[in-house]
């Protein structure tokens, strides 16, 4: 193989490669202008957890510890408490509720096992994803951060509707 042959072959390859590059110039841009524009997240996106309440505002969590048992990174810490009051006065929907419910986001891997394990649909993944903090200790989120009635939702995301085909949009690229 001569040197000339090499030059021709590599020139061809460069032209082919640049052809792909140049072909994208006229197409639309995919860059997300975060945080100026909200990010589109998929409906099943696994963001910061949410602890839910029922229609009377009672916490759905019964402190069964199944999420903590399912958690592979052991980031959930619960202290259960007995609530002897009548059903409508209670904090939770049953006599047992979580007095303390902590998730350590320094350890959480957002696997979603806790959500699957929950027998009461009390915990789900929300869409908040801006979890960075300046202090490692702040990664520990308590019930006040997680309850759906108390968690402040970020304005920087938009949930795709279930019909919206977010996935294939990206695959096209």
């Amino acid at each position, binding site marked *: 193989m001569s040197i000339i042959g090499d030059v021709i072959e590599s020139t061809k390859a460069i032209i082919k490669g640049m052809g792909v590059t140049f072909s994208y110039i006229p197409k639309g841009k995919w860059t997300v202008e975060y945080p100026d524009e909200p990010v589109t997240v998929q409906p099943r996106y696994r963001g910061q957890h949410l602890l839910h309440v029922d229609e009377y505002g009672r916490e759905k969590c019964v402190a069964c*510890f199944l999420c903590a048992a399912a958690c592979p990174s052991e980031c959930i810490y619960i202290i259960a408490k007995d609530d002897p009051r009548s059903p409508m006065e209670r904090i939770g929907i049953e*006599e047992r509720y979580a007095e303390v419910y902590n998730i350590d986001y320094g350890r959480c891997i957002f696997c979603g096992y806790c959500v699957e394990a929950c027998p009461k649909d009390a915990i789900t993944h929300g869409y908040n994803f801006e979890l960075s903090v300046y202090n490692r200790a702040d990664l520990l989120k308590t019930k006040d951060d997680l309850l759906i009635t108390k968690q402040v939702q970020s304005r920087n995301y938009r949930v795709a509707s279930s019909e919206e085909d977010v996935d294939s949009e990206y695959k096209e690229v």
Partner: protein
Amino acid sequence: MSTELIKVTINGKEFQVAKGARLIDVCREQGFNIPSFCYYADLALQASCRMCLVRIEKMPKLQTSCTITCTDGMVVTTESEEIEKAQRAMVEFLLANHPLDCPICDRGGECELQEMAFDWGNLEERFTERKNAQPEKYLSPIVANDPQRCILCKRCTRVCDEWMGEDAIEAGGRGANTVIGTFGGWLNCSECGNCIEVCPTGTLLDATYRHQARPWELQQTVTTCTYCSDGCQESVGSRAGEVMRVVARDRYVNGHNGEFLCIKGRFAHTFINDETRLRTPMIRYKKGGKLIPATWDEAVKFATRGLDKAAEAHGANSIAVVGSPRLTNESLYALKKFATELVGTENYTATDAFSLSPFFQNLGGQIATHRDIRHAKTIVLIGGEPEELQPFAGKQIRQAVRNGGAKLVIINSTPIRLKERATQFLHINPETEDAAVLAIFNQAHNELAARKMGVQETELIELRRTITNTEGDVVIMFGGEVSAEAQSLLAQMPYLFNKEGRRALLHPLPLYNNSVGATDMGLMYGKLGATEMLDAAGDSVHAMYVAGSFLPQHLTGREDSLGKLDFLVVQELFETETTRFADVVFPAASFAEADGTFTNSGGLVQRVRQTIPPVNQSKQDWVITAQLSKELGVDFGFQMSASAVFGEIAERIPAYAGLRYPLLKDETNPVQVKHATIEQRDLSQESEAIRARVEKMSDTATKINATPPVGHELFKIGTLTDKLPQMHLLASGNPKPPTLAVSPLYQITVDAGMKREAIGGD
């Protein structure tokens, strides 16, 4: 059960089994898993859950293996489509009306029904109808009840009847409306909680642990109970340094007590993490001043200086070392070593209610373990009240009579509840137990004894005949009522009654978990007893080192004695009457935070294991003693290891020779210490002393006719039980709250009017 072997074919394999063996046991031993709910060894057969169905050739229907006794040539199938269908059907039936609220059920995770549903449950629930709802309620301050979860295996009712002899819990209603309930809707019993323990579902629950934690979150540690001398093995569940509950479930612990525990052992563990536990060492710099928190170094220095000063001023014998029968053998040994080898004092003792030293000094036979009691043929109970003070011994006596056909002879001045089971009850005049011992020892004294005891002479003759006609074991049990001399006579009784085919065994009934250990460690052989020591305070005793506290009965009438001391060092869990006068107080670790051993009334030496790290700044008692001795210039060489202390015990104390922690590892096979027996000796001096005392007794005493109420000892509020709020409700007569739906704790406030007189001694 005979030793004759017969042939049984199970699933095509032949097995040699003992004749008369129960099929379900045989199958399980051979590794064939047979599910069951209602079958429980040593309880009456029920055969109601219909889970243990097997196919036996030549029998028309499927048979319950729990009711079948193996016969020669029996051909059994335990696994087949037909059997599996039946078993799956039973689980489906049981789950039909079950609320399936496992997430909030405290039993979730260790529930037999849950496990059974995993193995034999169907994937789909065919039951789509409305379930029979029944409200949750409380049966007593410590027993919570959710009737809807019940599968009516009736283990609870059988345990209540057969173990406790109380029959406090029974089934009511009929058919699908059957519920387990109580007479009058409120549980008035000894609140042992064994019904909770044996319940295979979440129907009966521990109300003190209600909705606190889930079993898989708990760290289970096998240890020995710290209350009475029975030495029950229990599993302490702790989480993050906090003791959450105590159970004796088979799945966690398999001690000589099975699943038995009493109210104190099972529920009264809240003292461990109580807020009022001593937090730091404290020093009273000035007599009459306040106790001021200090560092360990400072406190240890202050204590040793004080003891040194007393020794210099008044000599070594002016220092008294006092242990407590609640401490581990290791701590007691360290105290004894501190007293004899370091201080060199003759004044050492343990604060026990009565001393067993005369008994062990004259021991002429074997000590009966609780298993021996269960299989005894005759039981003679002199004084004592095991159903209140040693509940497990009481249960063993009841089962020996009920299931083993044993004869029970009770000699007591009070008509205790156990007398209902007795073949013979000698209702004697108060404080004449010695006379009974004398008469049993030598029938020549029958007439005198009978007269003083206020019974017929024939009753004593019958008692002797019962003993001498026994084939098998005779167990002689005695309580604290008998005098020191009578203890000597009792200790020598095996020589009188041992015979070919008959063993006379002895079983003392001391009050504390390590009373026997305190005697073994030599602490009970000091010059002065606890009360004598208090009397000598300020006189010949000038300084005292107390581990634990004096009992209220020691201090009554001697309230100021401790104040007369020049210097008092106390190590305790809580502030008590004893710490009130202390110059230095060390925070000690409770049994849950300590490693060591306890020796129970049956002579079994059993492990105490550290469940949680010491609370606050507390340290184990022997560590404190070792620290003091080090400060005084002697290193005991314990190397901060309890097993090193026990190694030294095994070297120095003959009864414990050869023992090591690894040998005590298995709670299923507890080790009995080899107490030295002495040869038959002349006891005429002792019996003469007793005779003289008996002769002085009055002929016309009034008998106590009232049977003491259930729980009069069990529910007593002491330093430890005081920390369980429910105990105060029970001690106040267990009032029924306005509504059963909510724990009585939230409904009833215990006020002074309700409180029984608070007496120590738990």
